[in-house]
């Protein structure tokens, strides 16, 4: 009996040690990935907000068939292999006529002509290049792309960034599973912030409560996140080596579900606009993008891709025979027929990014993301607090925590400001967005080194965050001229949502600043009773 109790105690101790170390060793990077992941959940909304825009459903309201035929005439035949079409955040349709070939990095990439077309069918820009380069230089997505890329690969060159975020996912899995296993009173811990507690005890209770609520979410995100990172970085190529003897093209054909040998005999295509309308009618939604394969040949087909729709969690793909306009099938995400692998895969993305119920599920995901950020922050602060008492030199850890926790949001806000200001000055937004982040990071680092008092440093960074959150809606307004009245008039929900979030964050920052100043005043009075007596007398 005694041996059993001792065994349980030793396992509990081992779990606590594992929970602490998994959080501490990679805690700061984990916070960066979780914070930017919370932002990535609303990346589409940030894209619309940063361009002061709203989707005009151009795939439905313009004559895609006519435009494709016109562009096909001016594009070399070799790029008619595949044509992708989507609406960008500047109310333009982007047509990319491409084929596939190796890019200078040695990766299989799309290569061809990209046309940006206005709603009236006028070509605004025309560029030739690799798909990855064209997307990386597209100013429309400069802000959302930059923020999402921190989340997915921390801006570290491929595949190392993905491998690192995969390892961080596993560390998060360890921290959350060990946190779950440590709980002896799971339901009590969900509500137990003890009264008359402050400082470290309050922080510990807050860490436990926020952690308990977000455990299922954290496990789910850690699992799906590490799947994304590992499969993209080395998993898929490794599967190609084992299952297809290294033939990566055969692997891609199996996954995409495409026949390897297609007829290239010329044949007129049916009306694409009618096929898109039919797909939209079947799904009661507008496709996110369409892809036309082997245009104007006997093998021509059209794929329409839909984001999760009402009552559905996964993506939907409808395929049409583009030679006669007949609907062929609901195509699985991978392979040619429905399978367990495809079903699970189509669930992973919506679960990871909370896209399964529109803005409603995204708000819940953002809330849980903030809770997980809070758990990481309080976890590291608890560790810093514990070591600070024993050893003075551990104060650098508290300073590092303040630098990271308040610095990262400030740098992200600064990158958004850089995006708007560079647009006004007609500068390259794809360059100035990350550059603004780096400039802010340098300033935050200098402040962290220069301000000796950590409480003062924290207050300065908090005030800066609050100020940026307050100013950004105004900067956006002066940049685009689109006001809240316009936003209401054109149902620009994403724009209003992001600006409400910014104003709420600003209010929260200033409230925390007020509480912090109050706390400092209280501590000064306690430390200096003579002063308090004098103040009382006054």
């Amino acid at each position, binding site marked *: 009996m005694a041996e059993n109790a001792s*065994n349980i105690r030793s*396992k509990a101790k*081992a*779990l606590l040690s*594992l929970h602490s170390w998994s959080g501490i060793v990679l805690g700061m990077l984990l916070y960066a990935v979780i914070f930017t992941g919370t932002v990535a959940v609303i990346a589409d909304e940030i894209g619309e907000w940063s361009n002061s825009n709203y989707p005009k459903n151009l795939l439905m309201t313009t004559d895609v068939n006519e435009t494709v035929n016109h562009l096909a005439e001016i594009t070399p035949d070799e790029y008619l292999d595949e044509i992708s079409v989507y609406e960008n955040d500047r109310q333009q349709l982007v047509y990319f006529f491409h084929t596939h070939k190796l890019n200078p990095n040695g990766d299989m990439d799309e290569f061809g002509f990209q046309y940006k077309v206005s709603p009236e069918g006028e070509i605004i820009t025309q560029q030739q290049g690799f798909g990855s380069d064209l997307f990386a230089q597209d100013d429309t997505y400069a802000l959302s792309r930059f923020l999402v890329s921190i989340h997915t690969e921390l801006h570290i060159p491929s595949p190392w960034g993905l491998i690192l975020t995969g390892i961080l*996912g*596993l560390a998060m*899995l*360890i921290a959350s*599973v060990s946190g779950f296993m440590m709980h002896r009173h799971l339901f009590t811990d969900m509500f137990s912030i003890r009264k008359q507690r402050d400082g470290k005890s309050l922080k510990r209770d807050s860490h436990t409560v926020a952690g308990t609520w977000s455990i299922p979410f954290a496990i789910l995100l*850690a*699992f799906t996140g*590490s*799947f994304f990172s*590992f*499969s993209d970085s080395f*998993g*898929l190529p*490794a*599967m190609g080596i*084992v*299952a297809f003897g290294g033939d990566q093209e055969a*692997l891609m054909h*199996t*996954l995409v579900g495409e026949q390897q040998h297609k007829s290239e005999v010329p044949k007129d295509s049916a009306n694409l606009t009618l096929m898109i309308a039919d797909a939209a009618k079947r799904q009661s939604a507008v496709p996110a993008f369409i892809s036309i394969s082997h245009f104007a040949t006997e093998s021509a087909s059209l794929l329409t891709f839909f984001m999760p729709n009402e009552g559905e969690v996964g993506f939907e793909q409808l395929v049409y025979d583009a030679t006669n306009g007949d609907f062929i099938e609901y195509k*699985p995400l*991978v*392979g*040619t*027929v*429905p*399978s*367990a*692998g*495809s079903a*699970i*895969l189509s669930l*992973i993305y919506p679960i990871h990014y909370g896209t399964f119920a529109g803005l409603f599920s995204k708000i819940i995901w953002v809330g849980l993301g903030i809770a997980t950020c809070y758990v990481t922050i309080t976890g590291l602060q608890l560790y810093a607090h514990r070591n600070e008492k024993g050893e003075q030199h551990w104060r650098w850890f508290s300073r590092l925590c303040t630098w990271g926790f308040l610095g990262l949001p400030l740098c992200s806000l600064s990158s958004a400001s850089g995006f708007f200001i560079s647009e006004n000055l007609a500068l390259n937004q794809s360059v100035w967005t990350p550059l603004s982040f780096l400039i802010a990071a340098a300033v935050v680092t200098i402040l962290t080194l220069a301000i000796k008092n950590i409480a003062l440093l924290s207050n300065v960074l908090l005030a800066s965050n609050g100020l940026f959150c307050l100013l950004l809606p105004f900067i956006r307004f002066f940049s685009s001229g689109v006001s809240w009245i316009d936003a209401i008039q054109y149902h620009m929900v994403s724009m209003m949502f992001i600006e409400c979030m910014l104003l709420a964050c600003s209010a929260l920052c200033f409230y925390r600043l007020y509480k912090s100043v109050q706390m400092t005043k209280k501590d000064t009075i306690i430390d200096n009773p003579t002063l308090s007596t004098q103040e009382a007398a006054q």
Partner: protein
Amino acid sequence: MNTSYLHFFKNRRFWLSGPATLLVSLFIMFAMAVWFPPGVGNVNNIMMPLIMFPLIWALLFFYTYLTTDLRKAQWLLVILFIINSLILTFQFLG
């Protein structure tokens, strides 16, 4: 640097739960591409190992980290390593 920070390198559990578990999990994932039924869609043997990799790793990690019988855990990893290595060897050379 204080050498007390590096004591875990001498710990057998560190090597079992760390590098050994990672290596065995990777081998299981690769070998699954060979023996997992591909299904009618012919993609399950590619997708399922990728999806299951974090779960396999977590399961082996927590087992090797929490077990009191390290010898048993060590043999389990050795057996899994040998079986999956043999499957991969037959796939490439067989």
